[in-house]
């Protein structure tokens, strides 16, 4: 501090040490209850009203009863006294200062009318008679000083402990200015406090150690359980290995049998041929000798011989050409559907962890992700707060207490699907999958198992989320060139006798070389033929939606087969099945490739899980509900109950929470409201259709602002309909009758508008609903053009999709639009009474719904919205109800 500042502050101190009655330095400063200080004598003494024994404070006019002991009983103002103990510096100067710069002090007027001004000439004083202020200032504005009452407190210059000692040092602990003695005392106090805290900490230590013990116990338990699980896994796999080996032995035996039969066959043939050879040779010998002694032979005998020779010669000719070659056709093929088996093994078994996961998570996850990760993470023990699990309703306060069970599910009857397993969510870490895939490769070299021949592709509708749940046995049959160990053996040829199994020996040119089953297998075989080298493809949809793969032969981390509509096939339908399944698979995989699967199972929606509402004006009753919105804050559902002129609010299970609004044109009143949305602040924004305005409500449902009026100029509206907010708070309004979109700031300031009447890109015909995607693209249901148009947030046309029609991907008067966090677009196709789901790029994904008033049926759809859990809230207008899918 410079000297000047020092004198300034000391001057201030002097002013504060001046009694405002005697205008002199305090003598025995007494503190009144109103905190104003005066000298005890004569100032305070004079102020006492002898009749009432009261004192009225000159500064604030507060009345105080004088204590029994008189004014001397008022407490001394110790602070002032401390200041007065300070050595007065620069006595000579100071006396001038006190006289020249002394503040008169003054009354705080009863009305607060005083304000400091530079010049007394300006009229600023209080009104007359009822109150009067004072103005306190100095001439020429040379140095203005604030009145005492507002003067800033001076810096402390005495010890805050004893108020006496002026040799101070700052306390490191609490920043107080303390003298040495007080500081020591203070430090003692701090020590005591520290000791107390240490004691408290020590007392709490057992909590942690018990938690540690608990963790140890849990660890042992987990080890035990995992050991059991491993044992179980080992058992299962050993059993299957035994089966596999038995199957191997069986197949070997079959091959041996074939070999034996073949050898036996050949031996017989050989014998026959040997006999033939011998007889032919003897015939030749006898004939030659007979001819050599020709004279003895009669003509008749000669003719007979000739005939025999002729016959034998023909036999020999015909024998060589066909029989030997045909015998060579016999072959053996080993066919194993390796891919299916591999897949089945990869998908075989499931480690299911039941129980609350013990881990800390980020909260804002979708269910799928949450459970997926929590299952993985549940092997870790964490002290953090547990996350709510959807799969367990047991409430637990501390997750140390939670338990989790480990069970291994390996189905004994692989094809049976237990109902329980349908409900299970099963997840395997990808590492686990790779492990099983490796194991599968190992088993590939073995040829099969004795589950009764083979099971071809099992095109069975798999239950939802069941991709690892049960054992999938792929047959060793079916494929040909895909088989790893395909080999052929030509049978030993050369038999003279006609083949007894000629019927079974097909020509090489046979289109379906499916000989083995018919030839050797005792069991009826189900064969699923495939064209050589056609890749087998599965569409994979991970339940958590985090990744999607389409599998080729060389890419095998399977998880879930897409539901296959084609039932189990057999020999008769194989060709047909093939021709149907292959394109199907290819289509699926093509459309799959490069696309994210929705984590909301749109393709499994179709039945409403919650329905509520009927016509009326009570709670849970609607009269033509139109827009619906979901609050991003608390997942509540806001329904624009249009002809009841109100907004009804429900929680995400459909429980009525509140409603607000009534008919009218004032703020907070509606006239057939249509669109509704909730912005990221939780403000509810409603398009008040017949009032041609937008109203914004806070979360208490009180109207904050309204804007817009009827007209077609900028910022004016003409039957505004759908409304949406982006994450920056801009409000997008479907200005329906003006056939345009208008954008407003959240306070209602017009930002921009785009679109005009027409059917070309960027033009509208009754734009009805609008939605904003997570990447800030604006999706608008261009209703009478039967399409959805997509714009950038600046109003630049990007693309559109949909055309008039009833096919998948076609629309009729589309209305509500909603977009999930992945960008999938749900459109209420009101003319077709269905909800269609499109991918973010506008390609069709799935649909559900039909006309009617049953579950999952609609009559005239309006708005829709998507809940945080992926469920779709649909406003079913003519049924006056809300359905949640």
């Amino acid at each position: 501090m410079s000297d000047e500042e020092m004198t300034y502050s000391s001057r201030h101190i002097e002013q504060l040490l001046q009694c405002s009655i005697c205008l002199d330095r305090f003598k025995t400063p007494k503190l009144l209850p109103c905190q104003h200080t005066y000298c005890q004598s004569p100032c305070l003494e004079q102020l006492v009203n002898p009749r009432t024994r009261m004192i009225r404070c000159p500064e604030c006019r507060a009345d105080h009863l004088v204590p029994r002991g008189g004014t001397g009983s008022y407490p001394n103002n110790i602070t002032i006294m401390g200041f007065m103990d300070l050595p007065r510096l620069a006595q000579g100067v100071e006396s001038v200062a006190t006289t020249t710069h002394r503040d008169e002090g003054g009354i705080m007027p009863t009305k607060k009318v005083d304000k400091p001004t530079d010049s007394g000439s300006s009229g600023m004083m209080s009104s007359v008679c009822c109150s009067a202020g004072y103005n306190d200032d100095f001439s020429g504005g040379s140095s203005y000083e604030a009145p005492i009452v507002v003067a800033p407190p001076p810096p402390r210059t005495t010890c805050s402990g004893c108020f006496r000692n002026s040799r101070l040092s700052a306390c490191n602990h609490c920043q107080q200015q303390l003298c040495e003695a007080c500081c020591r005392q203070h430090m003692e106090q701090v020590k005591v406090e520290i000791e107390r805290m240490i004691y408290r900490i020590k007392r709490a230590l057992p909590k942690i150690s018990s938690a540690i013990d608990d963790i140890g116990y849990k660890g042992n338990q987990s080890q035990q359980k995992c050991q059991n699980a491993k044992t179980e896994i080992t058992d299962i796999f050993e059993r299957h290995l035994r089966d596999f080996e038995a199957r191997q032995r069986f197949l070997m035996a079959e091959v041996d049998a074939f070999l034996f039969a073949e050898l036996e066959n050949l031996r017989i043939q050989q014998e026959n041929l040997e006999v033939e050879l011998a007889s032919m040779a003897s015939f030749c010998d006898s004939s030659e000798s007979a001819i050599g002694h020709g004279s003895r032979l009669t003509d008749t005998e000669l003719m007979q011989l000739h005939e025999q020779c002729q016959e034998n010669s023909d036999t020999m000719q015909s024998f060589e050409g066909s029989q030997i070659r045909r015998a060579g056709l016999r072959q053996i093929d080993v066919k194993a559907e390796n891919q299916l088996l591999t897949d089945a093994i990869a998908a075989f078994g499931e480690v299911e962890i039941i129980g609350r996961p013990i881990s800390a998570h980020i909260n804002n996850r979708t269910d799928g992700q949450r459970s997926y990760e929590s299952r993985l993470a549940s092997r870790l023990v964490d002290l953090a707060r547990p996350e709510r699990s959807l799969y367990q309703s047991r409430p637990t306060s501390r997750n140390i207490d939670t338990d989790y069970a480990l069970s291994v599910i390996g189905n004994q009857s692989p094809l049976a699907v237990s109902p329980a397993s349908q409900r299970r969510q099963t997840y395997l870490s990808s590492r686990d999958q790779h492990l099983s895939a490796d194991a599968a490769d190992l088993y590939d070299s073995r040829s099969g198992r004795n589950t009764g021949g083979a099971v071809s592709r099992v095109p069975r509708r798999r239950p939802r989320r069941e991709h690892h749940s049960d054992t999938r046995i792929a047959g060793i049959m079916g494929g040909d060139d895909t088989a790893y160990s395909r080999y052929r053996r030509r049978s030993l040829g050369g038999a003279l006798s006609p083949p007894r199994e000629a019927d079974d020996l097909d020509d090489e040119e046979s289109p379906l070389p499916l000989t083995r089953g018919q030839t050797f297998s005792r069991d009826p075989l189900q064969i699923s033929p495939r064209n050589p080298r056609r890749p087998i493809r599965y569409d994979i949809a991970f339940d958590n939606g985090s990744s999607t793969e389409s599998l080729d032969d060389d890419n095998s981390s399977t998880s879930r087969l897409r539901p296959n509509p084609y039932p189990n096939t057999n020999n008769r339908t194989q060709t047909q099945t093939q021709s149907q399944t292959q394109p199907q698979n290819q289509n699926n995989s093509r459309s799959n490739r490069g696309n994210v699967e929705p984590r909301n199972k749109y393709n499994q929606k179709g039945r409403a899980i919650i329905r509520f509402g009927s016509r009326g004006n009570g709670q849970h009753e609607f009269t033509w509900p139109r827009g619906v919105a979901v609050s991003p804050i608390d997942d509540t559902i806001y329904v624009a109950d249009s002809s009841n002129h109100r907004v009804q609010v429900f929680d995400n299970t459909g429980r009525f929470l509140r409603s607000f609004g009534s008919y009218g044109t004032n703020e907070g009143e509606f006239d057939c409201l249509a669109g509704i949305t909730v912005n990221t602040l939780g403000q509810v924004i409603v398009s008040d259709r017949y009032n041609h305005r937008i109203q914004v409500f806070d979360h208490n449902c009180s109207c904050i602002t309204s804007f817009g009026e009827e007209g077609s100029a900028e910022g004016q509206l003409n039957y505004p309909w759908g409304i949406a907010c982006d994450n920056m708070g801009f409000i997008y309004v479907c200005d329906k009758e003006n056939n345009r979109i208008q954008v407003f700031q959240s306070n209602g300031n017009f930002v921009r508008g785009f679109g005009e009447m027409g059917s070309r890109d960027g033009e509208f015909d009754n734009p009805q609903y609008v939605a904003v995607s997570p990447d800030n693209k604006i999706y608008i249901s261009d209703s009478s053009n039967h399409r959805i148009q997509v714009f950038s947030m600046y109003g630049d046309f990007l693309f559109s999709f949909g055309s008039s029609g009833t096919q998948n991907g076609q629309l009729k008067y589309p209305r509500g639009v909603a977009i999930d966090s992945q960008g999938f677009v749900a459109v209420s196709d009101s003319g077709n009474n269905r909800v269609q789901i499109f991918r973010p790029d506008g390609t069709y994904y799935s649909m559900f719904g039909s006309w009617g008033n049953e579950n999952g049926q609609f009559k005239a759809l309006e708005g829709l919205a998507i809940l945080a859990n992926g469920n779709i809230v649909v406003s079913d207008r003519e049924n006056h109800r809300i359905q949640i899918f």
Partner: protein
Amino acid sequence: MAGLPRRILKETQRLMQEPVPGISAIPDDNNARYFHVVIKGPSESPYHSGLFELELFLPEEYPMSAPKVRFMTKIYHPNIDKLGRICLDILKDKWSPALQIRTVLLSIQALLSAPNPDDPLDNNVADLWKCNEQQAIETAKDWTRKYAMAKNNNIQ
């Protein structure tokens, strides 16, 4: 009179050293408790450029009781009567020892800027002020010209 209280001395000293703009207060030569006061009419008021003489007397009980103040110059004001008595709360029941000569005079100056016809001392003036403010202001200006400017030379 047993000597002048220190407070009055101090106030007087300061009034002399740092006069309030538009106000002069000079103690009488014979009586230190009697002040000759001149207040300049506030600008933007009907009393603009008028110079109003007042007398101020500090009673024996001062500062425990209010000083006595009276207009010597005739003035047309709803809160000031023909005799120059002033209707001002701090001069009566709202007096406080924390107030000073300086603040009292400032309050009177402010009163000239903001007449309060609702709490009148002179009913005639106040009635006119209420029903025809324009005319009242004209009259006030007129009086100011007539009475407050004549003695210009005396004060400066």
